[in-house]
């Protein structure tokens, strides 16, 4: 088996900088603990240049550099960065183990054929047939895979190192080395580990420190000792350590299940009370979500937003999208409108966005028939229109059973696929379309017996030239308030053909349509 270890150095800092990339070139430290117990766990290059090291207390660090920017460890940032790392790993192999804290093990057995054929990058001789043979030689497949992995991880905003070996332990040690990528040939694990200091092997084991006190400084020193002697002096831990020193790691790779959702979020340094700053931060988070979904070929069909409120409590809401989409602008507009409609009611100090993935809709386009709409484009457009106009104002018109002329309904727009061939359209029926007034315009009417003599209302006024009616319409007699109306068609002397009705009771007269405009 060949295992690649994808390793993000100084993971808490890297995760934070992924969410706040503007801090990348600042002197920043990540601290753990509160008050006087706060201590540095990671520092940017600029802070390290000033002498700040992990383990310093925050007070010590500030005494070295008063303008130091300190950020606490952010569990939400770290979890989403870890998820993003795992998703990149899954684009290289389906068998990925989540080792936590910016480490992922990937079973790359058999994938080397997918990464062949590239030349040494940056040699400048890639396309030159006269270049020396060494420069034209393709990179070994595992080096290419490692280089591609580093590129992919850096594309999601995380620094990366990659080590490849036959065991998880050797791959991890290889990944932690500063020169990256490091590929350990199969069977060379012991030779690779031998010159390295013991601390690299398993820093968590106290036995390693004890062995150093015995005078053993390198992993090779330990590997050369007899296994039985180590086991008799240090017990089971010593045996495991000796195994590790020889490059033997019996732990199998435990692949993780595919996630049912994608999550991004962060804790904020100060509470937000206005919408715009939140939208600004959410835009970056959605952008990251979209890129992660794109890696796996997914689109978002439902987005859940959980806002952490000050001093306590949460505000949770969910938005269903008309069709799966990865369009950040659309999703962000929907979130903005939802927040405007229903504000959280307290300052926001953190947020989590959870995207429920689905496969984007695909359609087979016809060569000879009318052009079909791209489902993803259509979904995005409808979502944007709904966000601009409201759900009830965009959709497919529907006919409704009944008699009232203004009746209408709207449904989700999902056109059937166009026919395979193009045919000429049938001849128009030449129907007169009435321009319906929604709502109807109230008017004052002067009647002359059963006829209307004149009408007056908003933008409608005049004496009636021709009047036709009345026609009686009754609907909903089973309801508490049935509709009972008498309709007339009228043409005014000054021009304009209207449909006028008199509602029963004290409701009065209305114009509900105009013809011929």
């Amino acid at each position, binding site marked *: 088996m060949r295992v690649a270890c994808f390793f993000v150095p100084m993971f808490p800092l890297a995760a934070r900088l992924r969410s706040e990339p503007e801090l990348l070139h600042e002197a920043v430290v990540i601290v753990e603990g509160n008050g006087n117990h706060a201590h540095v766990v990671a520092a940017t290059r600029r802070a390290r240049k000033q002498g700040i090291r992990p383990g310093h207390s925050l007070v010590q660090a500030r005494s070295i550099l008063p303008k130091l920017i300190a950020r606490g460890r952010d569990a939400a940032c770290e979890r989403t960065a870890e998820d993003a790392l795992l998703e990149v790993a899954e684009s290289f192999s389906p068998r990925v183990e989540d080792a936590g804290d910016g480490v992922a093990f990937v079973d790359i057995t058999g994938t080397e054929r997918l990464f062949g054929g590239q030349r040494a990058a940056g040699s400048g001789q890639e396309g030159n047939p006269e270049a020396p043979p060494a420069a034209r030689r393709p990179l070994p497949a595992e080096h290419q895979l490692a280089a591609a992995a580093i590129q992919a991880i850096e594309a999601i905003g995380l620094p990366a190192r990659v080590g490849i070996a036959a065991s998880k332990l050797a791959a991890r040690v290889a990944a932690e080395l500063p020169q990256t990528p490091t590929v350990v040939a199969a069977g060379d694990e012991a030779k690779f580990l031998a010159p390295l200091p013991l601390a690299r092997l398993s820093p968590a084991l106290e036995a390693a420190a004890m062995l150093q006190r015995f005078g053993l400084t390198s992993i090779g020193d330990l590997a050369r000792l007899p296994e039985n002697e180590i086991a008799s002096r240090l017990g089971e831990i010593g045996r495991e350590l000796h195994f590790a020193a020889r490059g033997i790691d019996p732990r199998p790779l435990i692949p993780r299940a595919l996630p049912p959702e994608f999550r991004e979020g962060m804790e904020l340094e100060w509470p937000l009370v206005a919408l715009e700053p939140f939208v600004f931060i959410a835009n970056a988070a959605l952008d990251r979500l979209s890129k992660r979904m794109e890696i796996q070929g997914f689109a978002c069909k439902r987005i859940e937003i959980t806002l952490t409120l000050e001093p306590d409590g949460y505000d949770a809401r969910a938005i269903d999208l008309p069709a799966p989409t990865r369009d950040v602008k659309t999703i962000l507009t929907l979130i903005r409108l939802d927040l405007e409609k229903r504000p959280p009611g307290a300052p926001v100090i953190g947020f989590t966005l959870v995207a429920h993935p689905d496969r984007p809709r695909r359609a087979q386009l016809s060569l000879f*028939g*009318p*052009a*079909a*709409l*791209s489902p993803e*484009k*259509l979904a*995005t*457009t*409808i979502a944007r*229109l709904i966000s*601009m*106009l409201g759900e009830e*104002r*965009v*959709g*497919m*018109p*529907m*006919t*409704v059973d009944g008699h009232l002329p*203004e*009746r*209408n*309904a*709207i449904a989700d*727009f999902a*056109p*059937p696929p*166009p*026919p395979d061939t*193009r*045919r*000429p*359209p*049938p*001849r*128009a*029926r*030449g*129907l*007169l*379309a*009435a*321009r*319906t*007034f*929604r709502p109807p315009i109230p008017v004052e009417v002067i009647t002359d017996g059963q006829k209307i003599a004149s009408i007056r209302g908003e*933008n409608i006024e005049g004496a009636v030239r*021709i009047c*036709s009616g009345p026609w009686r319409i009754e609907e909903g007699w089973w309801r508490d308030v049935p509709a009972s109306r008498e309709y007339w*068609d009228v*043409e005014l002397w000054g*021009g304009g*053909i209207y449909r006028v009705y008199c509602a029963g009771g004290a409701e009065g007269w209305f114009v509900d349509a*105009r*013809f*011929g*405009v």
Partner: protein
Amino acid sequence: LTSGAELIRALERRRRDEVVPTTIEAVDRLLEGGLPRGKVTEIAGRGARLSIVVATLASATSIGEAAAFVDLNDAFDPQLGEAAGIDLRRMLWVRPNSLRQAVAAAEMLIGAGFQLVALDAGLPPLRGRVPDAAWVRLARAAEGNGAALLVSAPYPLTGTTSEAMLRAEASRARWRGGLLTAVETTLRLEKHRRKRPGEGARVSFHVEEA
């Protein structure tokens, strides 16, 4: 092509593909076959504009194309649309609240790939105004996506950006036996980039039997 008949059929097919016919004979004659794809066509005036828009929507949807109707006055009657031949499953009905929203919606719909977008600005007074540059943007969007854009307004809005402009004169009603039976509108070609303007035609729309 092996014969003249085939050539004629091919040219006819090509011509049909380059326009969206309104299927109203007089209007198609004025517009040289119908609404040109990739261009803006405008119908302005006090005549029966909505009936022409409905007929055009029916024409496009009946051949399987997706069409969008941006209905600023919320004036469309789905029952009548279906009776006129519109395949409602293929028609997206958008009801904006202002002219600005209507123009923005039309631009989005053209970008989404709708082959026919009809924007009806309704009756005066229009709700809001848009700068002239907005019509230039719309025309460019239509050209870029090959969509036919039909603008129906009480007075000319699109200025120099339209390919053709029809003026719909005030309608005259026809009554028979005390019933409104039809409405007649005179259309006049006020502008056409490939044709001499001034031509006119009379179009009649009849009332649907109850």
